């Protein structure tokens, strides 16, 4: 099967700075790939490179089997099969939601009436028919982001590029937008590349996750891969909470859900955080401080010595931070 997107040794430079350096990865049709990394790690640049907004310093990008960027050649964005959601929404202030969503349809050659009819369809499928006549100034942040999403989906694309689509919306809206992205994506067979600095979001949405640090690919795998088998401490910390313990065979990491209170290893509770669905305890053990997660409200108090049981660990192999 032809990959929806293929990157081979892609590098992008801004002046002397390598923003993206030697990244190779593939994204299959129907697959969602998350780019996870802190700000400045090259996520946006990589997405811009696939869309065609930045030239490559080296390497090659193919979309749907067609090379669109490589040494000495770059296909302009409007002729690449991409749809894009921008981090700052990038909605056109002079167009209402309906004409915004109709815009890609018009560019694909539909006449105005037909494009508007299809745009209205798409908006109502996304539950936004009542927003059709509003301009960006009359939309909340979450609504703007959903209109931006509808605009991207209106284009018949091999890959949808989503640049931190939930970075500027609050938690409740974020969940709604994530649900819409998931539903819309399952309906088409297109691939999606999704950048995020939020591990929980990336793990929940993606089929595979690429961890980026300073423009380099640190690890690529399924959400379970990167969570349970991180390549180093940096990757472990990026993908979720992790405690580091000194064991007999060297240092290991322990996720909060890999340990439980009560057991033979001695441990004194140093901190308790009640989080609603569960409670986190920071416990001092001989191997180091360990965060333990247990369902329900707190069962022990600071200063108690319930002991702990570590059910599972992952070795760091001397690859420290």
């Amino acid at each position, binding site marked *: 099967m032809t990959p929806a997107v293929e990157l081979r040794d892609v590098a992008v430079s801004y002046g002397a700075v390598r923003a993206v350096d030697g990244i190779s990865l593939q994204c299959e049709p129907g697959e969602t790939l998350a780019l996870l990394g802190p700000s400045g790690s090259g996520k946006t640049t990589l997405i811009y490179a696939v869309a065609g907004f930045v030239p490559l310093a080296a390497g090659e990008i193919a979309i749907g089997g067609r090379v669109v960027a490589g040494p000495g050649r770059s296909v302009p964005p409007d002729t690449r099969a991409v749809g894009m959601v921008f981090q700052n929404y990038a909605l056109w*202030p002079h167009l209402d939601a309906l004409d915004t969503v109709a815009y890609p349809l018009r560019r694909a050659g539909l006449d105005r009436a037909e494009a508007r009819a299809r745009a209205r369809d798409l908006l109502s499928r996304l539950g936004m028919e009542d927003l059709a006549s509003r301009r960006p100034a009359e939309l909340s942040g979450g609504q703007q982001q959903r209109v931006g999403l509808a605009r991207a989906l209106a284009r018949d694309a091999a890959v949808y590029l989503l640049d931190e689509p939930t970075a500027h919306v609050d938690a409740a809206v974020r969940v709604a937008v994530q649900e819409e992205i998931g539903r819309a994506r399952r309906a088409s067979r297109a691939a999606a590349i999704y950048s995020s600095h939020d591990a929980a979001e990336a793990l929940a949405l993606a089929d595979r996750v690429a961890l980026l640090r300073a423009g380099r690919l640190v690890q690529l795998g399924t959400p379970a891969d990167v969570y349970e088998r991180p390549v180093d401490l940096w990757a472990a910390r990026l993908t979720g909470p992790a405690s580091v313990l000194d064991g007999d065979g060297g240092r290991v990491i322990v996720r909060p859900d890999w340990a439980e209170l009560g057991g033979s290893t001695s441990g004194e509770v140093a901190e308790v955080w009640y989080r609603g669905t569960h409670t986190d305890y920071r416990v001092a053990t001989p191997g180091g401080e360990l965060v333990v997660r247990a369902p329900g409200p707190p069962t022990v108090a600071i200063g108690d010595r319930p002991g702990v049981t570590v059910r599972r660990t992952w070795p760091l192999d001397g690859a420290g931070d």
Partner: protein
Amino acid sequence: MVALGGLVAVPIVELARVGVEEWQGGGGLDRAVSGAALFNTMWTGAAVAVLAVAAGTGAAFVTERMAVPGRRWLRLGIVVPIVVPGFVSALSWARAYGPGGLTDDLVGWELPGVFGAPGVVAVVAVNAMPIAYVIAAAALRSRAEPDLERAARAAGAGRRVAAATVTLPLLAPALLGAAALTFIVGINAFGVPAILGTPAGFGTVTTRIYQDLARSASPAAFSRAVLLALLLVAIALAFVAIADRMLAGLGSLTRTAAPAGPQAVARRSGIAAAIAVWLTVGAVTVVPLVALILVALTRGVGLAPVPSNWTLGNFAEALDGPLLGALGRSLLLAAAAATAAVALGALVAALQRRRAGRLYAAAVLLTFAVPGSTLAVAVLLAYGGRLRDTLTIILIAYVAKLWGVGHRTVAGSAAGLPPDLYRAARAAGASAWTAVRTVVAPQVRPALVAGWLLVFLFALHELTMSSLLHGPGTGTLAVEILDLQQLGDVPVSAALATLLTVPPLVLGVAVVILAGGRLLGGAR
């Protein structure tokens, strides 16, 4: 409020009253003469607007959307003509490209029509262009940020379609506003048509008013000047209304999230375009100024501007006796006007921060658009009885005209101050006075200094009102230059114009650097 009324409202009301009387008294416009002047004013204003907006927009695309080396300096080079007064530009264009000018001497070529309508339009457009540039650049940054174009490209639009469907519609209001403002600059221009138009028999409303008022004593000419002044202000105010509508909210439009995306992304190389802009700046500003300075340094008209013919005699003559007095008066008036304008501007800005300031702010903005010719006639009607031929009446006109500049600079800086800065100082234990002194004042001080320098510069370069209001012994340097030019003393007037322009030009560059981001629209 009282000051504003006394400075602006009383004169204008007085002008309207006298105008109505003159009209009813049968002193109507002399159609044959002022009809042509009105027509010339309107079409040169339109031509100036078209040229200035086209050039300013083109330059804005180069500095804002292309990868150009030395972007900051390019921006500075583009806005610098704003600190060269129009009549000096006119003088220097005549010295550079006119008959017997620099290019005529060097290669036997002169620009056809320097004296006449083409020259007037070109030189006024050069002086108006920075306004259009600043507006277009601000609009490109705040209304049509690059991500909006990228969104169009990612939606399948080619470069041209994206420009036509996204960039231009977003810029249109700003460009229309810029066109209205530069049109006002065009119809208010006096120095340029007086120097390049009048000798060629090309008259505008402003030169007509000057001739009727300063060069004629007949009652018919006076009443015509009053009516022309009213007509000019009516046209200007109509266009101010357009500009105000179009430019409302520029810079604060519907940006709901911080701009994202790598800033250095995918700019097309603009080296060729940048060179073209530099060459244009050189041809329209630098070469004429150099020609002017060379004339000022040369012993007599017609001699080649080579070192063996150089002399400082023209400057010595320029700084001698009566002319030195004119320089002193100019500096005194400019300093007084700057101090008064900034003080009033700060006062209005402070009132504005409390409440109900919008009205004052709008009124202040209007005064800047009121044509100098009109304002001078109005001030003369209102205060001429007691203050005729004094420096005070010139000062009143300067402050009325320029305090908008002081106000905008200060208010712009104060508006940029988050109120929480002041609240944080109060919450940290500072009294109201201490909070203003330690937190607000340091932030506003550069704007106060910049505003003072700007008003000082504009007042120093003011010609239109000074030429109508001065009397024996109260002429300013600009007026003396105009008179010398009309008497044909080219080297000394060139020396005076150099003195009036070059030191402030250096100063002006310093102001721009001081005010930094605000005037250049922020360095990126």
